[in-house]
């Protein structure tokens, strides 16, 4: 499948790299949750030292191939680039991708003997695998438990247009073969048995369940959960969606599923139905742009009232909203306009309004009010020896933030084990 974005050529990368100011104590590096040494790797591009650039990226970040493609640069490094005070920020993510696309994983790796003990990691997504790598580097062996496909959200749910299969396979294969002792395809619902068996446990399950809509008609045939649909399509199955699809939501999952449905069948109408306006969409700019380019359309300022239909979806009844100022958190508020409801004729409705941690798992681990697993600054949960991170703790976030959590958890676990001896 053709990728949306082409990798930079050598010349483009070299010219772009020359724009870097090589800031002292660089803001881009500080802003990156994985603390990728941005100015240094860009300097290495400039000098033609791709191996050096790759080594710098790889040291900082286990998911470099993934983040070179799907990291929302506008939220991190590029948002603070000093160069934008002269003209425009460096295209840091594209330079990052140039390095990974133009070089092979460093084979000059040296790992210590794994003598410090075994750690159980629940979830083989970016947080879990990052933690596994960092622990292996420190001398631990990790068993990683995964009920679904290894790789987490990017592998399961990101369009191959943005994240090609071969890239994913290369990254995951390298991580699991070089750093993970054992991937166990098991669903873990209780950490207590693992605590007894392992030196420590890291819970990084992500958000396996999807939030349902509490409106009428969601039981009708033709109503889908967004991530379920994404996983099905990503695994090669046919979505089964019809010709007029409404996707309810305004986050990355909504935009992603809309894009994939449109890619699956370019003659299909795919409309994102969102309560607020275009400015308030929570999805990343680049994803919105790409979705728009392939013909995804939008119904803004529309709040779903009910899914209409007898046995199968026939439409979505919505009420128009009106944006009215901001709430305490700075989010744009909206209110329904009475008497403004209308029906959008649809044959498929996809719900993409959120996700959560399963309620019936991990007895004994304290939860937040919103049902997320509670973990402190040091990533420790309410149970000694059990750490948690990633989406399961913070709610939906980015790959690079999950990587940060994995790295941080490894550090905490290593000092916990050392302290316990």
């Amino acid at each position, binding site marked *: 499948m053709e990728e949306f974005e082409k990798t930079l050529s050598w010349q483009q990368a070299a*010219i772009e790299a020359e724009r870097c*100011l*090589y*800031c002292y104590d660089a*803001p881009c590096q500080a802003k990156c949750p994985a603390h990728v040494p941005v100015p240094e790797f860009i300097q290495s591009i400039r000098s033609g030292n791709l191996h050096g650039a790759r080594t710098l990226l790889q040291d900082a970040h286990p998911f470099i191939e993934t983040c070179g493609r799907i990291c929302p640069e506008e939220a991190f490094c590029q948002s603070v680039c000093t160069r934008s005070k002269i003209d425009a920020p460096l295209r840091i993510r594209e330079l990052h991708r140039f390095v990974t696309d133009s070089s092979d994983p460093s084979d000059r790796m040296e790992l210590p003997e794994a003598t410090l003990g075994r750690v159980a990691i629940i979830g083989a997504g970016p947080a879990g695998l990052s933690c596994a790598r960092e622990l292996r580097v420190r001398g631990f062996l990790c068993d990683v438990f995964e009920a679904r496909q290894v790789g987490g959200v990017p592998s399961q749910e990101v369009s191959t247009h943005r994240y090609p299969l071969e890239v994913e396979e290369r990254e995951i294969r390298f991580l699991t073969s070089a750093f993970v002792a054992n991937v166990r395809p098991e669903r873990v619902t209780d950490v207590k048995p693992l605590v007894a068996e392992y030196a420590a446990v890291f819970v990084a399950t992500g958000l396996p369940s999807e939030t349902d809509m509490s409106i009428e008609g969601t039981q009708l045939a033709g109503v889908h959960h967004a991530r379920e649909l994404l996983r099905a399509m990503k695994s090669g199955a046919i979505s089964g969606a019809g010709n007029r699809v409404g996707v309810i939501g305004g986050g990355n999952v909504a935009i992603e599923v809309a894009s994939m449905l449109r890619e699956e069948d370019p003659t299909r109408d795919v409309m994102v139905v969102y309560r607020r306006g275009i400015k308030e969409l929570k999805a990343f700019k680049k994803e919105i742009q790409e979705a728009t380019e392939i013909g995804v359309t939008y119904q803004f300022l529309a709040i779903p009232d009910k899914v209409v239909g007898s046995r199968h979806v026939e439409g979505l009844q919505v009420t128009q909203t009106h944006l009215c100022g901001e709430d305490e958190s700075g989010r744009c508020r909206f209110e329904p306009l009475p008497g403004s409801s209308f029906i959008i004729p649809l044959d498929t409705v996809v719900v993409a309004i959120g996700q959560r941690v399963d309620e019936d798992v991990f007895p004994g681990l304290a939860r937040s009010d919103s049902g997320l697993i509670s973990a402190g600054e040091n990533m420790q949960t309410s149970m000694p020896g059990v750490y948690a991170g990633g989406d399961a703790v913070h709610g939906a976030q980015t790959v690079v933030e999950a990587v940060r959590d994995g790295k941080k958890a490894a550090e905490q676990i290593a000092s916990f084990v050392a302290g316990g001896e």
Partner: protein
Amino acid sequence: MYREHDLSYDFLGIHLENPFILSAAPPTDELDIAIDGLTAGWAGVVLKTTSVKSNPVNLKHPMMSSFGTAAHKLWGLGNIDLISQYHIGEICERITALKHMFPTKMIAASIMGSKKEDWQSLVWQLKKAGVDLIECSFSCPQGSMGEAPGRMLAQSVEATEKVARWVKEAAGETPVLIKITPQVTDIVEIARALKRAGVDGVTASNSVPALIGVDVETLEPRPSLFGEGAYSGMTGMAIKPLTLRTIAEIARHVDITISGNGGAYTWSDAAELMAVGASNVQFCTLPMHYGFGTIRDLKSGLADFLDRKSYASPLDIVGKALGSIKGQEELVTPHSHSDIDVEACIGCGNCFRACSDGAHRAILWDAEKRKPSVDDEKCPGCGQCMQVCPVNAIRMKEELDGKVHYFEFKGTH
């Protein structure tokens, strides 16, 4: 529709419509190309160096190479070119034709010989053809005729003086310029020899002997002819500071007319060369890079500069900066320190790092605000921070006897 500022003046008795001349190089080696250059607005040409008919010219191609960065590829240009393959007979025909087509432009020729008879015969033939000025190449880095390979005539004071006398003796009233190399122990000695020989001026200076590069992957030099290469003559932006020094050094010590050559890319580069003593400026790499059309900006840029500064003629800037060029030991000793414009600063920290690792550790860094400040106790005002600031937010404040002076970047770049 706009009035054109008059940039004309006399140079060694020759009318120049502006100070910008095409030098003896590839842009003047073919008649039709030279015609295009003159038509575009260049004030004159020095046709590429010619020789007597018996002199063989064995060119090797590729002859060009360059060095620079990805964004600025042609920072310096190298050539292993030789003099023209056209001999004096052909050149004389061209001189006559060009003089006929462009009676108000300077039509000059460049020559190179070995024996006295050759030099003088070249001069006589050119005079007969109606040449306005004769330039003599004493400094082709690929070897001057009659000298050992790699040795240039203009590297010997005695040889320079002797041959210059031969040429001027034959030239009579026709002005003679000697094109010299900057690669000598003492450029002033060479200029004095030329003054003694009675020639009209000096072209300062020729391309700089250089090895443009080695491809470390293949260990082939640049340019590479089946894996082998030779030293080049280097031109382009990279050599401007060398040219400035050469011109200034001659102008400070010897009363002789100078035609500037080497490294000028813009009207302001040309104005710099003139400010240290050049009476006009020759160009080669600029048209070889961006074409003859560059003359329009050279002319309008210089005209605007003269207007802004109320100079009547380009001649008014010749040597204007010389009075303030001194030996380091002659300079005053002001109290200097770094003066940072915190408003203009964009917080990159380059000044802090440069001072910390390469100077005096006199710049403090506010990590929170990402702003530098100067420790006046420690800062001797060396100026390194100013060089690395990408937005020219730093200047040096100098104090002496109650007076203040700033060393700063002015203008657009």
